[in-house]
C-alpha cells in the first residue's frame, strides 16, 4: 500500500508524533505491513524538481498511489487565491494540489484536527486565512473537497483527528485498511476511526477515584479531578488517550493538565478559558453528555459527602499526603 503525504497549514506535529510510534520503530512497522511512502516532505530524499515530478505524476494519474495523507489545514485565502500556502517550487496553491491528488487517491486521510476540521486557523474570529478541513469546516460538512466527496475507494475523508494525533491511531488505521479494509461503519459521525474514537478520554483516567468522589483539583499541579475547576473535558472527548498511553506512560491527565478535547471539531474556540471550567450557579456546564444533569448534580452532592479524608486531602496537593490504609489479612 502506497502513501503520499503532504503538509499544509499545520505545525508538522502529527508527523513528529508519528515518528514516536512504538513498540517497533515506525519504518520497520510500516515496511513489514507492506506500507511504503511514495513521498513524505519530512522524510524522503527527493527535493525540488525530483519531488515535484513525483507529485505531478501522482496528480496526473501516471504514478499510482493508494492513500493520500494530508496534515495541516487547507488555507484558501487571501480572497480565495490560496496564496497563504503555495507549494514550494511550484507557485501553485496547496489547495489546488490537494484537489488534483484527491481525485486519484483510493483513500484520503486527514491527519490531525487541522486537516480534519480546520484547526486553530479556522477558529480565528473572521477566519482571515479562509482555513478549513478537507471535508469539514469546523463541525459542518463541507471543507475543501465538499461534503459529498468520496475517494475512489468509496469512503469519505477518514479523519484521524487529534492535536496532534497519537502515532497508534495512524498506524492502526493504516494497517486496518491494508489488512481488512475500512468501511463507512468503521467511522463515527465526524469521520473518525472508531478504533480509537469510540472511547472517551475519561476511560482509564488515572484520576478516576477523585472523579468518583468529585474531589477536585483547585490549582495547577493538584492531584484531584480536573473537571470541576480546571477545564477538563475528558468525559466528553472521543479518544483512548488514557487506555493507549502517550510516550510510554503519559497522557494529558497524567501530565497534570486538563483534556481540552483536541479530537473534537471546534475545540480551539471553547468559548471559555482553556484551563477554567465555566459554571452556572457554581455547577459546571458541559457535564457528561450522556447523563441527565439533575442526576449528575444529585450524585455529585452525595459522593462529595461520602469522600474519604484521604481522597479529599490528596486532591488539593501535588503528591499524596495520606496513604491508603494498610489492613491485616482477613480483617
Amino acid at each position: 500500500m502506497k502513501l503520499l503525504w503532504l503538509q499544509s497549514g499545520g505545525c508538522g506535529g502529527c508527523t513528529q508524533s508519528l515518528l514516536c510510534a512504538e513498540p517497533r520503530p515506525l519504518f520497520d512497522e510500516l515496511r513489514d505491513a507492506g506500507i511504503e511512502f511514495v513521498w513524505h516532505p519530512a522524510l524522503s530524499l527527493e527535493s525540488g524538481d525530483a519531488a515535484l515530478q513525483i507529485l505531478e505524476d501522482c496528480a496526473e494519474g501516471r504514478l499510482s498511489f493508494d492513500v493520500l495523507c494530508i496534515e495541516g489545514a487547507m488555507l484558501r485565502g487571501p480572497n480565495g487565491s490560496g496564496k497563504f500556502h503555495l507549494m514550494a517550487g511550484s507557485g501553485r496553491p496547496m489547495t489546488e494540489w490537494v484537489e488534483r491528488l484527491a481525485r486519484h487517491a483510493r483513500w484520503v486521510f486527514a491527519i490531525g484536527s487541522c486537516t480534519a476540521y480546520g484547526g486553530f486557523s479556522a477558529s480565528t474570529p473572521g477566519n482571515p486565512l479562509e482555513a478549513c478541513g478537507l471535508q469539514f469546516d469546523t463541525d459542518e460538512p463541507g471543507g475543501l473537497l465538499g461534503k459529498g466527496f468520496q475517494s475512489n475507494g468509496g469512503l469519505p475523508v477518514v479523519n484521524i483527528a487529534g492535536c496532534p494525533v497519537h502515532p497508534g491511531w495512524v498506524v492502526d488505521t493504516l494497517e486496518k485498511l491494508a489488512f481488512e479494509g475500512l468501511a463507512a461503519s468503521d467511522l463515527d459521525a465526524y469521520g473518525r476511526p472508531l478504533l480509537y474514537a469510540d472511547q472517551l478520554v475519561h476511560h482509564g483516567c488515572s484520576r478516576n477515584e477523585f472523579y468518583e468522589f468529585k474531589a477536585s483539583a483547585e490549582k495547577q499541579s493538584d492531584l484531584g479531578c480536573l473537571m470541576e475547576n480546571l477545564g477538563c473535558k475528558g468525559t466528553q472527548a472521543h479518544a483512548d488517550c488514557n487506555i493507549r498511553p502517550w510516550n510510554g506512560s503519559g497522557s494529558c491527565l497524567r501530565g497534570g493538565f486538563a483534556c481540552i478535547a483536541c479530537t473534537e471539531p471546534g475545540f480551539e474556540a471553547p468559548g471559555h478559558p482553556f484551563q477554567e471550567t465555566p459554571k452556572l450557579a457554581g455547577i459546571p456546564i458541559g457535564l457528561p453528555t450522556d447523563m441527565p444533569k439533575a442526576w449528575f448534580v444529585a450524585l455529585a452532592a452525595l459522593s462529595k459527602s461520602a469522600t474519604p479524608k484521604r481522597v479529599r486531602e490528596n486532591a488539593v496537593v501535588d503528591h499524596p499526603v495520606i496513604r491508603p490504609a494498610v489492613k491485616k489479612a482477613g480483617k
Partner: protein
Amino acid sequence: MKRVLVGPFNRVEGDLEVSLDVDAGQVVAARVNSPLFRGFEQLLVGRVAQDALAIVPRICGICSIAQSAAAAAALASASGVQMPANGKLAQSLILATENLADHLTHFYLFFMPDFARASYVDRSWYPDVASRFAAIKGSAAPAALGARAGFFKLIGFLAGRWPHSLALQPGGSTKAMTAAERIRVLALLREFRGFLETTLLGGSLEQFSALASESALRDWAAGRAGDFPAFLNAAYDLRLESVGRAKDLFLSYGAYDLFAGGVWSPEYGETAAVDRLDPAKIAEDVSHAWLAQGEPLPPALGETVVDANKAAAYTWCKAPRYAGQVAETGALARQVVAGQPLARDLVCRHGASVTARVVARMIELATVVPAMEHWVKAIVPGDPFCNQLVLPDSGEGVGLVEAARGSLGHWLSFRRGRIDRYQIIAPTTWNFSPHDGSGQPGPLEQALIGLPAGEEAAPTIQHVVRSFDPCMVCTVH
C-alpha cells in the same frame, strides 16, 4: 546569469523555497522564501492571556515545548511569579528533552540522507555512509527512531505527552514527579546515553565534551567507529568546515542556567567575553515580507498585517536584526556565546560552517545529558513543583528561551485580562530572514553565496541549508 528555484526544500520542518541567482556555476545571490502563512500572532489577540499556554505549542510540532516555555516565561514576567526549585528543574528537563531529541532527529532523518546521494558515489566513504543513512531505508534508522521514542518517554513521565503539552506553566510544572518516576527517568537517561556513546559518538560523553580544539576533534575521530565520526570523515573530505559561513555575529538568550546568553563574534577574539544581550536592540524589518510596510519595530511594538500583493516582497518571514546587524542563532551560536572551546576554535579558524553547526549539536548532546542526570537527582519528591499564577488585570511580558534551533522570543501585552498584542521571533526567523530595508541579506542568504549550483553540482546547498536545521512552521508561526 540564470535564476534557479529550489523547492520543495524538504526534510526541513515545514515549507521552504530557495531562489538562487547563478552565474558561471556559482550562486551570486539567494532569496529565501517561506511560502506558508499561519498568523498565530493575530490568532492570540483577544484571547484570555493564559490561553497562550494552550495555543502557542500548536505553532510548532517539532519545538512545541520551547514555544510553551517562551509563553510561560512571558506570563511569569508579567505576573512576577517565581518557580519553586523542583518546577525549574522539571522545566529544564522537559525543554532539554525536546532540544536534544531535535538534534537527534535532525542528524539522522533530515541532514545525513544527503550524503547518500548518487553524486558522491565515487567517494571512498560512500558505500558505508549510503547504506547507513539512506532516507527511510538506511540501516541507522531503526535504532535512531527507537532511541528517539525511548528518550521522549521522559516527557511521558514529566509532561504527559509530546508534542503539545500543557505542563509548562509560568509557576513551574503541572506534573510533580514521584519517587518511582525519578528512578524510571534516570533509567531512560542511561538508555539514551548508551545510544549516544555506542552508536552516535563512539565514545563517552565526557570524553567528547572535553575536546577543546579542532585538532583534538580530528585526533579523537580518526579511525573511530560511530555515526558522527563517519559524518566528520565525509565532511572533511568535502571541506565542509569552510562552507556555509554567514555574518558570524552569534546570538543566544542562554539556556537552562547552563549556557550563558549574549552576543559574540570571532572578531572579539577566541577567549573574549560576550557582549551582554540587550533585547532593546532587537527590531523586525518587513520590507521584503508580504506584510504592510512600516519602519523596523521592536517586537513589543510590532505589527503583523498582511499585504499579499506587496511588490518588493518574496516571503512571509520578517527580518529580525540585532542593532541593525544580521545575527545567526542556533546550537553553534549557543556554544560560542557560552565560550565552549571547541566551538570557538572551529569558528575562529573557519567562521561558521556546516561542520561547526553539526559539531555544536553533538557538544550539546554530550554536555546536556549529564546535566539532565544531575537535575533529576536534584529533584526532591514531596517539595512543590508549581506556584500559582496571579496575573494583573493588564500588563506586558517577555519570554526569551533557547529552542533547539536557537533564540525564541515571545512579547505579549494584555488589557483587562485579554491579549492585545503578541509578537514572536523564532530562531529560523533570524536565520532564514529575507533582505532588510538596507539591502542586507539574511544569514542563510549570505551563507549560500559562492556555492556551486547547477545540474552537475554536488549537494552543497542542501548541506548548508540543512546545517541550520530550519523550522519553517515556527518562522511563519
